[in-house]
């Protein structure tokens, strides 16, 4: 019986494949972005597709107003639905049409706050509207500027947020991401 006395073969160290490494890093960026609202975190790749592959699968209902991204989202197995039924929404908030969609995005309820959707949009960081943020994740207050967004966005967000109901937002600029959870109070300066 040699098998018992021999030292075991050294176990191979598991290595994440490219998909796992990418989605893990994307989630980590999103997690810290939402934990520290207003801070800029770095995604492993630019664009919204990375967020979709890290978060969305056939258990999700997704609204997407960009046909190219729709194709990618459909490939994850998620159902493509109208904005009013979505749990994840990839929106173009640089035009009035985006605001119309945001008006219909589910915000959940006090009973089921997790029904509030996750909204992803492009923005330009460091220009445009100045915002003061307070709330969980921010020690006192912080200021950011977000540009390339349709006017009326922040008024709509305030009108639709009835904490703990509300939607959570991620803004993407290249490979940078800023998270604004529903718990953040936004003051338009």
């Amino acid at each position, binding site marked *: 019986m040699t098998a018992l006395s021999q030292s075991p073969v050294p*176990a191979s*160290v*598991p*290595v*994440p*494949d490219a*998909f*796992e*490494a990418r*989605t*893990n*890093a994307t*989630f*980590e960026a*999103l*997690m*810290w972005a*939402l*934990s*520290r609202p207003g801070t800029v975190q770095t995604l492993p790749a630019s664009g919204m597709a990375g967020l979709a592959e*890290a*978060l*969305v*699968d056939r*258990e*999700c209902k997704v609204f997407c107003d960009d046909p190219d991204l729709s194709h990618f989202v459909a490939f994850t197995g998620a159902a493509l639905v109208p904005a009013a039924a979505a749990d994840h929404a990839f929106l173009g908030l640089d035009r009035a049409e985006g605001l119309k969609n945001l008006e219909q995005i589910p915000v959940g*309820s*006090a*009973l089921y*706050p*997790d029904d*509030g959707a*996750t909204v992803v949009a492009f923005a330009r960081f460091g220009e445009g509207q100045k915002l003061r943020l307070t*709330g*969980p*994740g*921010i*020690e006192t207050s912080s200021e950011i500027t977000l540009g390339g967004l349709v006017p009326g966005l922040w008024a709509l967000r305030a009108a639709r947020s009835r*904490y*703990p109901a*509300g939607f*959570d937002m991620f803004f993407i600029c290249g490979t940078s991401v800023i998270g604004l*959870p*529903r*718990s953040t109070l936004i003051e338009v300066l």
Partner: protein
Amino acid sequence: MSIANLTKAWQPMSYGFLDASAKRELRRKMLKAIAVPGCQMPYASREVPMARGWGTGGLQVTLTLLKPSSVVKVIDQGADDSVNAASIRSFLSKVSGAAETWDTLAASLIQSRHRIPEERLHAGQILVLQVPNPEPLRPVEPNMSIARQMHADADYGRLWLILYERIVRSGRIMEGAAYPSLVNGRHVMTPSPIPRWDVPKLHMAQHLTFLSAGREKRLYAVPPFTKVEPLVFSDVPFKVEDHGALTCHRSGVSGFYMNEIPQDNGGSAFEVSDSHLGIKAIRQAEGEADRIGATWYQNGQLA
């Protein structure tokens, strides 16, 4: 579309044990948990090679976060070397290639059962607490649908009633662990069965905390810089355990949370509960270069 791009190459095991769809679901729920601090988010708790009730909730959150550069520390009641902590830690490193540590300062990811380390956690660190019972309202409302409605209405009066009854009966707060705490001024959570000593460490902390109950299939979070206020009466202040004056009989450190060890003569000896803090103190006394980081408590007082 072809078979080749619909399937993946064969692997003996998913990286980090959990499959990709389990991780995506946990990620979605972890984001919602951060967005509504202290609010319990349901998730489909997966099977892991460990019995429910032994930290499966914490394990799933940790497995979702793990990457090869992670450094994991696992604590069981303050100790790194108990069977439960050691096996979870070795499982985590086996399925992910992550490094193991006992040192709070070196860890990037800390999974813990019932203690928060005495050394301050810093901004990049994630604390994952294992939760047996996530529902603070269970002692007053066993029906979870009604409890959910009470959370929705922020109807927490009956929790104060429990505290009141304990104070009337015993003259002091009797909750030894899992002291109900108001998070972000809105949701009451149970901070898992950590002693009262550890509750103030969650208030306006630098680190991110996840609390996950595998058997109960719920997880919730306390983001950095979030208010965590223990429920109190204005005339009966919150008090942590009276351990400030105790000294550890092995390492000589004092002013930290201690385990009481009954002695044959009827008395008791005390041993610091955060075992690696004690180890560091002993090694320092022996002239080694161990560094004890800044601690939440100094001389038994919250700094």
